[in-house]
């Protein structure tokens, strides 16, 4: 997939893209395509892509996802929540919304949960105001590509003071098509003041075809709003996954994000958060388990713009075989942002000699009265602990699995949505069970 292949996709699909009758949207798309074509796919020559090469993606070939494939025999999409739980679910297959697999429970007054396509029909004026409002970083070619090509995705809008008690689950199933596909889901979350929601995104697969998911998400949290945002990326091991998130957090609001990665041949999560009001707070936490030839990149950028804001960031990873992980975390404390509290940590377990982590924590501080820290560690399992377990009769592989699970369990068990913990723990267990020993 070269830059040209993607621009060809755009030319081929242009008339089929939703909202082509809306001049503002056509302009938005055309501008984004121009930006993407000028910048091209990111290469390691760019500072923020130094450790992640998209060469494997360039070598693969994907078709543009046009009309949805009519019949995919599936009764039910997998869920990360207990089946009894009463929650809202939007299911997408190869990027296309599937109403038959989704659950649209009644929502309280002032709450809108819908697809981007539906929203373009219902309230284009509101979308015009919000779509692309936060994704203003010209250096993000993949976000520009998403803007140009966006076909569908979800939209969550909560009016002032509305609290959604039940979590929202967004499920993406990839690889179901006749051939390799590339698609670009676009999501928009706008929480007005004091509103609250819990959002769970699950990316997984059902077919054998390789695919490329390139997601763009904008999150706007007004005063005192709270969003718990979880993501499990368990894509097929022949898939590519890139996701760009922009979040703007107003005074007293909380953006609480936790992402877990086990899937995809190559993946990148890029999250940019602007703490724009006093007492704005964000948690950006993550866990990943990779092996084989997998490559996972977590790149975060947090801007403290005003006084008295806080962020905490802990990414923990387990890397086996020849897999490679990248963590780039940048915290910028702007001149006015006195009394910033910012803490960042990257911790990694390297299970093989060929496993690799490139960790680049970065603090840029322009205010003088702040409490900030960062750190990065990488190492093998604790030999003393391993011996202790084995001396009690626990065989080596089981002892190793216990310690790996324990390493990540802390992060998982700290999430606010406790109902999600069993599913996340079981995906860790699943990964551990599938850990073949290399001879």
């Amino acid at each position, binding site marked *: 997939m070269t830059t040209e292949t993607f621009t060809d996709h755009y030319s081929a699909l242009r008339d089929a893209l939703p909202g082509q009758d809306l001049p503002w949207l056509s302009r938005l798309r055309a501008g984004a395509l121009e930006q993407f074509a000028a910048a091209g796919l990111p290469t390691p020559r760019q500072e923020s892509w130094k450790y992640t090469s998209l060469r494997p993606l360039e070598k693969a070939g994907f078709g543009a996802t046009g009309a949805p494939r009519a019949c995919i025999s599936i009764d039910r999409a997998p869920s990360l929540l207990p089946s009894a739980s009463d929650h809202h679910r939007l299911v997408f297959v190869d990027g296309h919304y599937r109403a038959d697999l989704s659950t649209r429970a009644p929502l309280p007054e002032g709450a809108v949960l819908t697809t981007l396509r539906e929203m373009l029909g219902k309230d284009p004026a509101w979308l015009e105001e919000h779509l692309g409002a936060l994704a203003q970083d010209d250096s993000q070619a993949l976000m520009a590509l998403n803007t140009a090509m966006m076909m569908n995705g979800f939209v969550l809008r909560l009016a002032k003071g509305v609290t959604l008690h039940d979590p929202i689950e967004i499920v993406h199933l990839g690889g179901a098509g006749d051939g390799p596909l590339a698609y670009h889901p676009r999501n928009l979350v706008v929480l007005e003041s004091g509103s609250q929601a819990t959002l769970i995104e699950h990316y997984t697969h059902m077919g054998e075809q390789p695919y490329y998911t390139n997601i763009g998400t904008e999150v706007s949290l007004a005063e005192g709003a709270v969003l718990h945002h979880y993501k499990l990326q368990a894509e097929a091991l022949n898939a590519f996954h890139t996701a760009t998130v922009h979040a703007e957090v107003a005074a007293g609001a909380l953006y609480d994000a936790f992402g877990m990665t086990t899937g995809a041949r190559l993946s990148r999560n890029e999250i940019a958060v602007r703490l724009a009001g006093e007492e704005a707070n964000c948690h950006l936490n993550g866990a990943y388990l990779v092996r084989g030839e997998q490559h996972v990149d977590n790149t975060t950028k947090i801007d403290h713009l005003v006084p008295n804001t806080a962020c905490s960031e802990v990414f923990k990873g387990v890397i086996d075989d020849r897999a490679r992980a990248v963590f780039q975390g940048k915290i910028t404390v702007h001149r006015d942002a006195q009394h910033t509290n910012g803490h960042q940590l990257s911790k990694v377990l390297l299970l093989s000699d060929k496993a690799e982590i490139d960790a680049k924590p970065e603090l840029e501080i322009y205010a003088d009265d702040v409490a900030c820290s960062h750190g990065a560690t990488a190492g093998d399992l604790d030999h003393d602990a391993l011996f202790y377990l084995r*001396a009690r*009769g626990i065989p080596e592989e089981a002892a190793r699995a*216990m310690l790996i699970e324990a390493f990540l369990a802390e992060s998982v068990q700290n999430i606010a949505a406790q109902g999600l913990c069993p599913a996340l723990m079981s995906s860790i267990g699943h990964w551990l069970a599938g850990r073949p020993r290399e001879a």
Partner: protein
Amino acid sequence: MLEIKNLHATVDGKEILKGIDLTINAGEIHAIMGPNGSGKSTLSYVLTGREGYEVTEGEVLFKGKNLLEMEPDERAGEGVFLAFQYPVEIPGVPNTTFLKEALNSVRRYRGEGELDAMQFVKLVREKTKMLHMSDEMLKRAVNVGFSGGEKKRNEALQMALLEPALAILDETDSGLDIDALKTVADSVNLLRGPDNAMLVITHYQRLLEYIVPDHVHVLAQGKIQVSGGKELALELEKSGYAEFTANAAA
């Protein structure tokens, strides 16, 4: 039960054990006393198979089997138990999970059926009661935030659950106040029987007032310098180890 013959071992290329001979029969309690750096802990790690302890000469038979060829977990399955001087803290692993996994691993090895959750809870309750341990200690992560006494009690609990044939107690008295010491010693004494044996490694005689040995050996300079009955421990308390270290050096 345990036969150690001319055991030599090195750590980082340095010879620490220089020819140990020791035979322990079922039903016996042996104490090994000695100054710091004499090789006491090395002996316990060699017997349990810790990485980095290399046997260069000699052999160790446990119930007639070559112990030194076994993995640490196999040795535990065979019935060798080391009560650690410094029990390891393992964040993120709940104590109960650990205890259940250990017990069932050993039971599998011994060809006994695994215990289900109910059976395990019943058994562990019985043992914690005996050891005056709180249920709260079971819920916490393994040894994390435990006081010195709690850690040693947790070792005693593991011993009580795994019912080893040979228990090696490495400086079990270190870091314990007298009450904790008594509790731990009581639980160790409960495990005494005609079918099992103990090797008590200690610097001080104090512990031996509560766990009374049949035989006492003095280890210094990597060798057993002298062996005797329990009265030897009392003599050492008065005279110290200087005599043995000086003799050995001479």
